[in-house]
C-alpha cells in the first residue's frame, strides 16, 4: 500500500510549503481588507530574482533576500493602487499576474538566453533535523528537506500567533472587518493595510524562491504553474487563518504527492489535481463548513479627514 511508504508524507510536506506560504501571505492581506489574487505573480517574481541574485552573487541567501525585497516591492504596487487609488483589487491583481509572468520570462530570455538559467546557480541547503530524522517511519519527513521547509513551518505558526494573539494582529483584523470603527478608535487603517499587503508579498516571494532555489537551482518560464491560485484556494479553504491555510495546503499537497506517486498506476493525475479547486467551491457554498471572508475584504476605505 502506498500510504505505508513514508516518502509520500515527505513529498506531501514539500509540496504543501509553496502553497502554504503564499496562502498565509494572502491571509495577511485579506484580513486587513485587501483582496490579493496576485500571489501567483509575486511568486514568479520571487522565484526569478531569487535565482538571478543567487547566481550573480554566488550566494543563495542573498538570492532569498533579493526575492523577498522584489516580492515586497511588487506587493507595494498592489497596495498603493488598492489603498491610495481605491482601484478594483481584482483588476490590479490580474495586471500584476500578467506583468510578472511577462517580465520574468522576458528577463530570463534577455539576461540568460533561451537555454535557461546557468546550471551552477547555488541553491539553499537541504537539512535533516538531528534527532527527528532517526525516528522510524516519520523520520523521512524531516530528512533532507530544504531549509525553507522548516523556516516556513515556523513562520506559519508565528503568523497564526501574531494574527490572533497580539495587539497588532487584532488591529490588523479589525481594519479588515470594520475600518470605520477602527479609524474612530485611532487605528491607522491605511498603514495596517500596507503592512498586510507587503507581508503577503514577502510570504509569496519566499514561496516562489522555495521552488527556484529551495528545491531546484534554476528558473523556468511560469514555473509556479498556478500554485498562487491554489494558494488562494488554500487560504479560503483554511477560512482565512494561517493554521487553516497550512492544513488546507497539506491536503492539497497530499493530492499533488498522490498524483506523482500514482503516475503510471492508471489514476489520472489531472483528475487528482482538480481536488483543491473542487474542495474550495464546496467550502464557499457551505457544504463543508462555510468559509466567510473578512467583512470589509476588497472594499477601499476613504479616511475621514
Amino acid at each position, binding site marked *: 500500500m502506498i500510504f505505508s511508504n513514508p516518502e509520500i508524507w515527505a513529498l506531501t510536506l514539500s509540496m504543501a510549503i509553496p502553497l502554504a506560504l503564499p496562502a498565509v501571505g494572502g491571509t495577511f492581506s485579506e484580513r486587513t481588507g485587501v483582496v490579493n*489574487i496576485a500571489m501567483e505573480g509575486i511568486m514568479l517574481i520571487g522565484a526569478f530574482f531569487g535565482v538571478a541574485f543567487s547566481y550573480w552573487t554566488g550566494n543563495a541567501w542573498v538570492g532569498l533576500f533579493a526575492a523577498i525585497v522584489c516580492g515586497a516591492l511588487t506587493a507595494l*504596487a498592489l497596495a498603493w*493602487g488598492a489603498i491610495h*487609488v*481605491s*482601484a*478594483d483589487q*481584482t*483588476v*490590479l491583481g*490580474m*495586471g*500584476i*499576474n*500578467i*506583468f*510578472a*509572468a*511577462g*517580465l520574468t*520570462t*522576458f528577463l530570463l*530570455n*534577455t*539576461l540568460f538566453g533561451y537555454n535557461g538559467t546557468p546550471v551552477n546557480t547555488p541553491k539553499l541547503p537541504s537539512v535533516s533535523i538531528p534527532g527527528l530524522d532517526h525516528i522510524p517511519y516519520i523520520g523521512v519527513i524531516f530528512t533532507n528537506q530544504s531549509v525553507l521547509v522548516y523556516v516556513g513551518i515556523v513562520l506559519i505558526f508565528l503568523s497564526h500567533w501574531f494574527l490572533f494573539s497580539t495587539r497588532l494582529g487584532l488591529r490588523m483584523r479589525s481594519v479588515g472587518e470594520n475600518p470605520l470603527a477602527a479609524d474612530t478608535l485611532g487605528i491607522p487603517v491605511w498603514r495596517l493595510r500596507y503592512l498586510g499587503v507587503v507581508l503577503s508579498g514577502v510570504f509569496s516571494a519566499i514561496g516562489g524562491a522555495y521552488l527556484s532555489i529551495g528545491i531546484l537551482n534554476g528558473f523556468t*518560464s511560469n514555473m509556479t504553474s*498556478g500554485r498562487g*491560485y491554489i494558494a*488562494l*484556494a488554500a487560504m*479560503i479553504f483554511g477560512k482565512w487563518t494561517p493554521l487553516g491555510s497550512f492544513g488546507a495546503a497539506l491536503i492539497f499537497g497530499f493530492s499533488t504527492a498522490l498524483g506523482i506517486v500514482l503516475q503510471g498506476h492508471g489514476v*489520472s493525475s*489531472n*483528475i487528482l*489535481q*482538480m481536488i483543491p*479547486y*473542487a474542495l*474550495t*467551491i464546496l467550502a*464557499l*457554498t*457551505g457544504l463543508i463548513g462555510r468559509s466567510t*471572508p473578512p467583512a470589509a475584504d476588497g472594499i477601499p476605505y476613504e479616511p475621514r479627514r
Partner: protein
Amino acid sequence: MKALQSILLPVAASLVAIAIGAILVAALGYNPVSVYGSLISGAFGSLGNLGNTLTASLPLIIIGLGIALSFQSGLFNIGADGQYWIGATAAVWVGYHFTSLPGWLHMLLCLAAGMVAGALWAGVIPGLTKAFVGAHEVITTMMMSYIAILFARYLIEGGPMQEKGYIPQSPLIASNTQFPYFTQGFARSQLSPISMLIAALAVLVAWFLLYKTTLGFSLRSVGLNPRAAKYAGIRVKLYIIIALALSGLFAGLAGAVQMLGVDHQLLDGFSSNYGYTAIVVALLARNNPLAVVISGLFFGALTTGGQNMQIVSNVPASLTNVLTGLIIFFVGCERIIPQVIGWYRRRRSARAQTPAS
C-alpha cells in the same frame, strides 16, 4: 467630458505602458524604435500579417463581449479561459462524431455545443452558488476554469477523447465542419470569412441585447444597483445566473469558432490565455461591445506583432505580456486622474489664497 475621458484613459494607459516598455528595452541595450517597428510591421506589415492579427483578435473579441456583459451586470467572470476550453472541447467532440450530417448542419451543431457547454460551465455552479449562497464569482469561476482545463487535458491524456496512439491529442473534426480559408488576399493566414462573420454577428447581438432589450436593461440595472433593481421588481438572482451563463456562452462560442476555424482538434498545452487577455480587452473597451472590437484588434496585433518582434529584433515576445500587465494595472488605477486633478486644484487655490492672507 465623460465620453472623452473613457477614450482618453485607455489610450493614456497604453501609451504609458508602451513608454515603460521602451525604457526597459533600451536599458537592456536594444533600440526601442526598431523593436516597436518590428512589432508594428509584424502585426500590419502585409496582408498575411494582417490576416494573422485578425485571426488572433477574433477569440479575444468574442470572449471579450461576454466579459463586458458580465461586468455590466456587476459580475467579474475571471474564468472565461475555462469556459473557452469547455466550449472548444464540446465543439471538437461533436465535430468528429455525427459525421453523416450535412456540413452546414454539423457546423451549426458544433457551434451550438460550444455555446451550451460554456454557458452551463459558467451558469450552473458559479451562477447558482452566487445567486443562492453568495459565493464570490471571482473565486468560483477561477476554480471552475482550472477544473475545465484539467478535465479537457484528462480527456486527451488517456481519456475517452484521445486519438489512437500515444500523442495526447483528439481526433481531427470532420473536414466538412472545418471553416474554409480565404483563397486570395488573406490566403497566407488561417483567417476564415465564416469566423469573421460570426464575430461580427456576436458584436451586434451583444450590443443589441445590452442596449435594446428588456433583458439587457434588467442586466444593467442589476449591475448598477442590485438593491434598487430588486425594489423595481427585477428578479436579481435570476439575472445573476443569466449574466454568468451568457458570459460563458460567448466564451464557449469563441472556443468552438477557434476549433472549427483554426485548430481543428484539441491539442495538449491549453495555454492560449485568451480568457485572461479578453478580460483586459473588455476593461480597455470600458465594457462597450463596439469598443471591444477595437481593443480586441489592439491585443491581437500585440500578439502577432510580438512574435515577429522576437524573430526580427531578437526581443522576447513576452515583452507584450509586460505591456498588457502594465496597461491593465494603469486602467485599474483610473481614479488617479480625478485625484491628481483635485490635488492640483487644491494646490492652486491654496496658492491663490496665500497672498491675500
